[in-house]
């Protein structure tokens, strides 16, 4: 093996990620010169599009940032808007929002585990190929994804860009009959969700020991989804309103997404970060499944993210059953909203991690300014740090093809949502 080998790997279109990203790796001998997740998804400038719009229009507009996690965008937005106006929609709305978020976690995580990530670990190019050899597992995954979608439909009418969420609550409360049917579907899915945790833990995952700073919400009583303070494994513990003082975004040449840093360093958001910071908030049956699966948490192996996703699917199924089992239809599914000028912050746990919103309203309740920080731009620096460390561990002596595959596996493990990550930059006009 010559130390003079020049490595130049360029993957122009990354497969099995949401949105448009590319990989670039340049190395000389055993030294990595450059390794980048290049994001070239064209920005859509959502924050600008929101200016001047009425607060009531925001939930339907921000959903369009991401087709895979529209509920997350709606949830962070309604929370921020309600805080700005100083209103509290009450327990029923709070409970139903958690149920709807459970649906999105189940749908998004099941999609990622089966259609995007698992083919890497089992040596297939796609889930469709994987289904030839592992038909039962792929079917189980698609069925769980379907249960998640159904749960979103219960409250939203459709699973992509649901229409049920509004500032102050929901446009419609489901009937007890619909809820009963949903609870039966969820109960029937429990064994699949249990089995999935064990299956992901048994996958031939690469070993990789890394140190990373996890950032997630933490709530006084429950596993975080819609509420909580922002905490980190490094000891951070702040209110949502202090996010901008603790995290900074910067722009880099190879990406249309902004890079987020905390105290000048990369950090991790998403299911693994969430789980590590909230192990004591798991409902007992989920904690038991996780203990029995053979992977010890907290872990330093980033690839255990797939196990964390499976554990969160199980958690979401349990939570939805628990909440919906005591369902009664309220007389009002939303509370009245009286807008006034002000600033509001919202942060929730999107499937891919912390999703932070800030809105400023004028006296008529129209958006004066908006700022949205999605999970993938927060993870981008961590992904590049991981790529570098993983390649150093793996060794550059591998063939170009092996190096490329390893890099893609690293990236996909974060479930980057590139469509989400790139709507923030302001417009630079280049006339056609």
């Amino acid at each position: 093996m010559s130390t003079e080998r020049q490595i130049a790997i360029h993957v122009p279109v990354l497969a099995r990620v949401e949105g448009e990203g590319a990989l670039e790796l340049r190395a000389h001998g055993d030294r990595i010169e450059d390794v980048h997740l290049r994001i070239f998804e064209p920005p859509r400038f959502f924050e600008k599009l929101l200016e001047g719009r009425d607060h009531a229009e925001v939930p339907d507009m921000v959903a369009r940032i991401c087709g895979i996690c529209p509920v997350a965008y709606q949830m962070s937005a309604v929370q921020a808007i309600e805080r700005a106006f100083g209103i509290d929609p009450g327990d029923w709305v709070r409970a139903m929002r958690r149920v709807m978020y459970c649906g999105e976690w189940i749908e998004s995580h099941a999609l990622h585990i089966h259609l995007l990530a698992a083919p890497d670990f089992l040596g297939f190019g796609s889930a469709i190929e994987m289904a030839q050899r592992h038909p039962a597992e792929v079917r189980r995954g698609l069925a769980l994804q379907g249960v998640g979608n159904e749960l979103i439909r219960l409250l939203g009418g459709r699973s992509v860009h649901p229409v049920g969420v509004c500032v102050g609550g929901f446009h419609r409360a489901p009937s007890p009959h619909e809820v009963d049917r949903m609870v039966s579907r969820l109960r029937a899915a429990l064994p699949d969700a249990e089995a999935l945790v064990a299956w992901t833990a048994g996958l031939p995952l690469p070993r990789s020991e890394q140190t990373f700073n996890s950032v997630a919400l933490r709530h006084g009583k429950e596993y975080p989804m819609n509420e909580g303070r922002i905490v980190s494994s490094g000891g951070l513990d702040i209110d949502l309103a202090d996010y901008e003082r603790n995290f900074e975004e910067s722009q880099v040449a190879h990406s249309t997404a902004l890079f987020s840093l905390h105290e000048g360093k990369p950090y991790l958001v998403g299911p693994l970060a969430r789980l590590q910071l909230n192990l004591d908030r798991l409902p007992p049956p989920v904690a038991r499944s996780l203990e029995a699966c053979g992977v010890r948490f907290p872990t330093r192996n980033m690839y255990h993210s797939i196990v964390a996703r499976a554990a969160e699917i199980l958690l979401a199924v349990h939570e939805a059953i628990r909440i919906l089992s005591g369902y009664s239809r309220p007389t009002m599914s939303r509370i009245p909203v009286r807008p006034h000028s002000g600033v509001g912050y919202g942060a929730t746990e999107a499937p891919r991690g912390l999703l932070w919103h800030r809105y400023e309203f004028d006296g008529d309740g129209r958006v004066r300014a908006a700022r949205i920080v999605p999970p993938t731009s927060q993870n981008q620096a961590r992904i590049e740090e991981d790529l570098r460390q993983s390649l150093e561990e793996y060794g550059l002596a591998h063939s170009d093809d092996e190096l490329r595959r390893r890099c893609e596996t690293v990236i996909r493990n974060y479930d980057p949502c590139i469509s989400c990550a790139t709507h923030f930059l302001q417009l630079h006009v280049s006339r056609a």
Partner: protein
Amino acid sequence: MSTRPRIAVHKFASCDGCQLAFLNLGELLLVLAAHVEIVHFAEAGPVNPEVPVDIAFVEGSITTREDLERIQRVRKNSDHLVTLGACATAGGLQALRNLASAREWSAAVYARPEYIASLDTSTAIARHVKVDFELWGCPVSSRQVLGAVRALLFGVGPLEERDKVCLECKRSNIVCVMVTRREPCMGPVTRTGCGALCPRFGRDCYGCYGPAEAANTESLSRRFEGLGLLPEQIARRFLGMNAAAPEFAEAAMRTRR
């Protein structure tokens, strides 16, 4: 070599939500994959953007110079080109930028503008290449995409739904939200296909399936006025996910004049 028909799914500026019409098919996705060869669909795995196909589905709008060229290559490589959803068919929500003055947008200050190159418009695919069939919706449904695949494989054009959401409501016995609750519903001018989802949920349709056939936007605008909406509020009703669809764009302009 496979003799199955070949399909491709291409992505331009979008939220990826219309691709989910495929990825949310569940077991039907495996059935579909047995009947057609999916040669390019980056999110699902296969990446072969330059291989000739029988049907290319295109999600997203054109917003960069590179994409202007890429859509030409997609067209050249495809027997049938079908747009998937509001972005590809009408420019999407991001086409709201078309209404902003370029100067106003570019005056916004940011750290390193030279890193970003974006056109000042977001445009529908049909503005650049011939489109054989358009699937409206934000998002499109699995029923629509499977219907299109099936029809095209049989050598016929897919059946197009041009009726208004309003008619769908009447057929389904849904109580009119405009008449009973004075909601500014877009149902009278919006194409059906969603199953009148919003009125079913007791709320106003917001036009995500785009303009229906013979949409009388002028009359609806007057009705909105009667409900007490200000001209700017009426304009915003038309400036949603299909803001650049000609019927809606004109309705908004007319109100703002």
